[in-house]
């Protein structure tokens, strides 16, 4: 059963993570705010006819059985699941045809959705809910709070369906053995310098061919914005001004962090642009036992448990704490926290909330927690996370530790939705030795601030 359940999740969660990394390049230039309505044909008929709530969520994230179960219990509400398609969603938001409940990632998307006036304030619903108790939230849920400037405080706009402390390191003990590198501690985090040194040692070449990679990010063996921001969080450095009106990538800590991956690309620590490894994402190489360290969250344990090959030797895989920046403090924030908001323009806020409450606080939430595909948003559900096998127990133990450091959130400028793309664009020539990191950061600064300016102007003119 787990097997069937797992397969779509692999895809969805990996793309989810990927999306969070890639950012929504297209939405920044979208001049339209959400004039969104959820008017569905059935919705206009109020009394008698059931109200249809359109729910933007992946197939597999919400199953047909779950929908059926809900509809049986709530005959006046119908759920219409809609596929996750960022292009389509952008168009729907522009024309006011967006779904009632919209899937987003808390870390990347929430501030932008709040600023664009798409997200509905759920505080009063949560306050009066009998299913969801505010006190029961784990601290990571706060990523769905935004006061207009800082993420983590202010009204609650949503709840993650689950989350992970996404900067933990998954290792393959066998590959450590191959390279003759000792296994790092499961309780004391490495510094990033240590991590990359270890990665260098773990990378094995046979002539021109790389037989074993040392380290990869969620996507590739290259830097991405969440990595940078996590590093800076650990360092306690903020790039954006308080009003998010300006950003400064020229700070030395930025260079510090990125230099790690510039060297990492040069040293072919992971699949990257330069070596043009055909692997779609780091997990693919890790599962092929070709990658020693993979920086990703707790959710990956679910993938390992479900993978035909990996589950035969689960004990080779260990989750290690998220590394800390050199001279930084220990943090283990979430890098994505997929959840949903309710469209402010919904015609049926109460029905939408009913669906929302059920999906994010009811039985589906419990089912998710039990599956081990992520950390639940509620304290009371932490206990149901899988703890049967030695692998489970070990992972759970590390997780418990990490959660203690998951109350802080990485910085995401709400006006810079495609920051990740901009960053990667500027880093590429650096990887190929065509530009220096300093020049790249100056160029990035220019690009990013221009976009922030524009986005801010658009937002303020509304």
């Amino acid at each position, binding site marked *: 059963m787990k097997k069937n359940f797992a397969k779509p999740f692999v895809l969805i969660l990996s793309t989810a993570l990927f999306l969070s990394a890639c950012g929504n*390049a*297209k939405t920044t*230039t979208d001049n339209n705010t959400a004039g969104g309505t959820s008017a569905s044909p059935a919705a206009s008929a109020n009394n008698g006819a059931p109200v249809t709530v359109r729910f933007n969520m992946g197939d597999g994230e919400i199953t047909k059985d779950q929908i059926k179960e809900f509809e049986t219990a709530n005959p006046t509400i119908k759920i219409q699941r809609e596929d996750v398609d960022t*292009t389509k969603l952008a168009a729907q938001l522009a024309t006011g045809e967006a779904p009632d409940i919209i899937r987003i990632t808390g870390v990347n998307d929430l501030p932008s959705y709040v600023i664009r006036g798409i997200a509905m304030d759920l505080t009063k619903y949560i306050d009066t809910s009998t299913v969801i108790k505010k006190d029961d939230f784990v601290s990571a849920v706060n990523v769905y709070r935004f006061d207009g400037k800082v993420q983590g405080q202010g009204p609650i706009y949503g709840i993650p369906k689950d989350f992970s402390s996404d900067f933990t390191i998954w290792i393959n003990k066998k590959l450590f053995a191959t390279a003759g590198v000792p296994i790092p501690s499961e309780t004391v985090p490495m510094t990033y310098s240590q991590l990359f040194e270890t990665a260098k040692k773990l990378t094995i070449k046979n002539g021109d061919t790389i037989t074993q990679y040392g380290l990869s990010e969620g996507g590739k063996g290259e830097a991405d914005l969440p990595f940078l921001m996590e590093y800076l969080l650990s360092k306690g450095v903020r790039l954006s001004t308080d009003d998010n009106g300006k950003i400064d990538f020229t700070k030395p800590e930025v260079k510090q962090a990125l230099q790690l991956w510039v060297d990492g690309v040069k040293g072919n620590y992971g699949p990257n*642009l*330069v070596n043009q490894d055909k692997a779609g994402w780091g997990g693919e190489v890790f599962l092929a036992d070709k990658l020693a360290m993979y920086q990703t969250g707790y959710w990956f344990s679910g993938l390992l448990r479900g993978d035909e090959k990996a589950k035969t030797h689960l004990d080779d895989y260990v989750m290690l704490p998220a590394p800390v920046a050199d001279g930084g403090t220990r943090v283990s924030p979430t890098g994505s926290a997929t959840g949903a908001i309710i469209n402010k323009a919904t015609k049926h806020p109460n029905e939408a909330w009913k669906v929302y409450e059920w999906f994010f606080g009811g039985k589906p939430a419990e089912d998710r927690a039990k599956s081990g595909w992520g950390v639940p948003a509620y304290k009371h559900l932490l206990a149901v996370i899988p703890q049967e096998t030695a692998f489970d127990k070990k992972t759970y133990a590390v997780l418990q530790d990490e959660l203690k450091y998951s109350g802080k959130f990485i910085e995401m400028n709400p006006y810079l939705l495609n920051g990740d793309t901009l960053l990667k*664009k500027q880093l*590429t*020539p650096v990887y*190929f030795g065509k530009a220096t990191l300093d020049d790249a950061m100056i160029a990035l600064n220019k690009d990013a601030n221009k976009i922030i300016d524009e986005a801010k102007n658009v937002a303020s003119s509304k």
Partner: protein
Amino acid sequence: MANPYFNKLSPTRRHIIIVSVLLTVLAQIVLLTIGLSYVNNINHSVQDKRETNVSNQFHKNTLTQLGELSNLMQLLQSPDFSDFFKSSMNVRDVLTVTQQKNDLLSKLNDLHLSTKMVQRIYFIGSDMNQLSFSKDTDRTTLTELPNLRMDMLQENNMDQVFLKDNNRLTRYSQNDFEYIAMGDQLDMNNERAELYSFINGLNNKLVISNGNVNGVLVIMELNNDLFRSGLPDVYSGAYQFSILNHKDELIWSSADQQELADNNTQTKCQKCVELKKELSPYPYRVVFKQTSDFVLFSKKSIFSAFIALSCLTALVTFLISYFYTKKIFYPYLVLTKKMQNQARSDELILKYISDEWIKKGINSLTLRTKLIMIFAIAVIIPTLSDGFLYSQVLNQAVQNQMEETVHEVGEFMNVSILNRMDFMNQLINQLSVSRQLQGYLTTQQDSSGSFRNIKSTINLSMFPGLNEANYFVLFDSSGQSFYSSIFSNNPDMFTIEKDYLADTDAPYWISGYTDVFNHTTPAIIKRINYWHKGSITQSYLLLVPRDSFLTEVGPMESTVGIKDLQGKPIYSFQPYSTKQLNSLLWSGQIPDTQWQLSIEYSYEDIVLKNSQYYYRLLLIIVLILILSIVISFILASFLLKPLEMLKRKMMIVGEGDFSQMMSYSGKNEIGEIIRSHNYMVQRLNGVIHENMKIMEENANNKLRENELLSLKTLAELKMLQAQINPHFLYNTLEAINMRSMKNGNSEISLIIGSLAEMFRYSVNNGVGKVPLAMELSHVQNYISIQQIRFGEQFIYELEVPEHLTHIAVVKFILQPIVENCLKHGLSGFEEGGIIRIKVLDKDKLLFIEVSDNGIGMDKDKVIQVNGEILNSLENQNNGYENHGGIGLSNVYHRLHLFYKEQVTMKVYSSPMKGTTVTISFPLSQE
């Protein structure tokens, strides 16, 4: 009977000719209408058929092209082509870039794209780390676009334009990019220039892009006239084809480009057929317009042919009716003449008319039958001739039109086949350069010797357009198969003759190939050259198209066959199990190929429609015939009405009633007969009337004479009963008178004299009329005698105007009344009685009043007496005589004999007031 219509509708020759010509014209009009509607209808069905075929073919061709386009777009987005633009080629080492660029270029060139379809392809990378190229189809090199990148387009808001229209054919105008704020963001001049030239390059071009959905923006600038390849070079000018895109914009029209620019929305379509057809699954629509009506052959010429025919038939009808009526009316003419002769000669000797001439031939029929016959002929002639004309002319027209249609079908089908072949050419080109196939060829070569045991497959299931192929096979240069997409475990099943393996790099079609399912099918082969271990190796790729490859392009209701020039069958498609009866053959070489296309095009439905129309026409002819007979009946009965009338009247006259006259004013044969008849009857009638009058007078005289005679006889009889001979008595009385005068006895002499006068009056002068003076003198004689008898009992008064004394009155009318006065009125009077006679004339009547002042009568008696007066004489005779009624009655009846009802006689009386008797009768001066 004086109905003017009857008069006008007399069966004259002129009328009959007019009516029959009119009927002819009427039938012509009806048939002309039917004929024209039939022409229209056939026209429409042929037109519909052509329309359906042409629009279907174009629709299918367009779909093929769109499929080709969509496949190409998919292919260009596949890693084979798009990876290059995602691999940071702008920052890589030159060697790698050059090598991969050449690789890409050769792949692009190997696609052998046609400028008829694509003119330029843009590959635009996401940012400065990527490269952007454009490739002109007619050039073998890539053109680098140094600055054009997605992020640049994004900055200029152009990314949304392409995203919105992704995978949709669009024709951009300057307006689409108008709002793009270029300038401040583009600080470098050459960047701006490049963007401008890019935009200008797209302006008013047919463009399709992938909208940058996978990291590379692929834009294909298509041939503006791309869809014209769905049409043959020459086709009817009446057709117009257009294609609308998802925004309902006209993206292509077969009309010239100027028109396209002018009416970017919709060309108006009055008086023309317009068909819209979705190009599902693509979001476009084909609009097919037929700008003018097809005409089988000019309606005008049909019309003038029909008019000429109408005139001709009208003339024929005229001639026929002219001579026919002449024959019909011959007997009537003869009859009229004879009757006229009869009537005009004053002799009353009637001549018989010989009936010899009505015995023979057509004349033995009744006039009604003849009229019906002529009217029927008047209708049948045009009906039959028109029917014949229709069947001839229209059949010819249908035949011509169908020939044209089948020619058109053939032309269009040629194009369709070429399009489908082109599709396959494209597919095999694309397939041959695919990384998967190339990779397979290389690896199988590596494991040479043992490859037959390796059953690795080429994963091409997602290859765009490959679903159009049934299967493909790889052969080595000796014709040995080593890979097949189906039955891959058994490549030996696939064989090919070595002859089929030609020494050319271009794809070529083979004929007479029997596929693995034992069907003869067209197939396409391409030689693939690839480098392996420093040398060029060759294999052959054989692609067998799907069965429906050509079936889909076949026109409806036709049998299609394709053969090569040697007559080897390549393809055949026969939708019918049995041979069609009505079909046309067309064959022609498919341009640019060695193939001969033959089409057996069925026009069964047109023939069916045609025959339906014939039946309908036949039915209408029958109906017209029936109608014409009915009309003939009605007309004949109208026309024959005067004749019927004449016949009836003549029969009545024949029975002896001469009072029947006919009123008929028609100046025609019948009128002549009627007038002659009338004249004759009139004359007969006059003669008979005169005779009757004479006879009646004679009879009346005789009757009166007899009656008077009988009365006289009665009186004489009575006298004889009295045994007195009047003459003897008269003579005796004369003798007594003489003796008395001699003796001086004057009183006796007076009595006897009076008495003798009375006798003489009675005996002489017959029973006719006498002057009133004589009658009065007779009364005087009587009075004289009575006065002598009764002395002073009464006096006698007479009041008669002088001029009335000569009035002739009937004899013996006064004396009996006076006698009654003495006998009844004055009976018992000693003296003082008065008897008065008064005569006067008034209103041409003579009034005679005899009155007394006697005892009179009571009312009942008066009534009784008056009644008795009027009673018949017989009753009087048999009754009692006491009342003297017989006297009065006698007077009355005698007067009645003369004056009939003009005489009145009345008795007025009341007790003791006297009695008055009045008589009146017409004055007659005699």
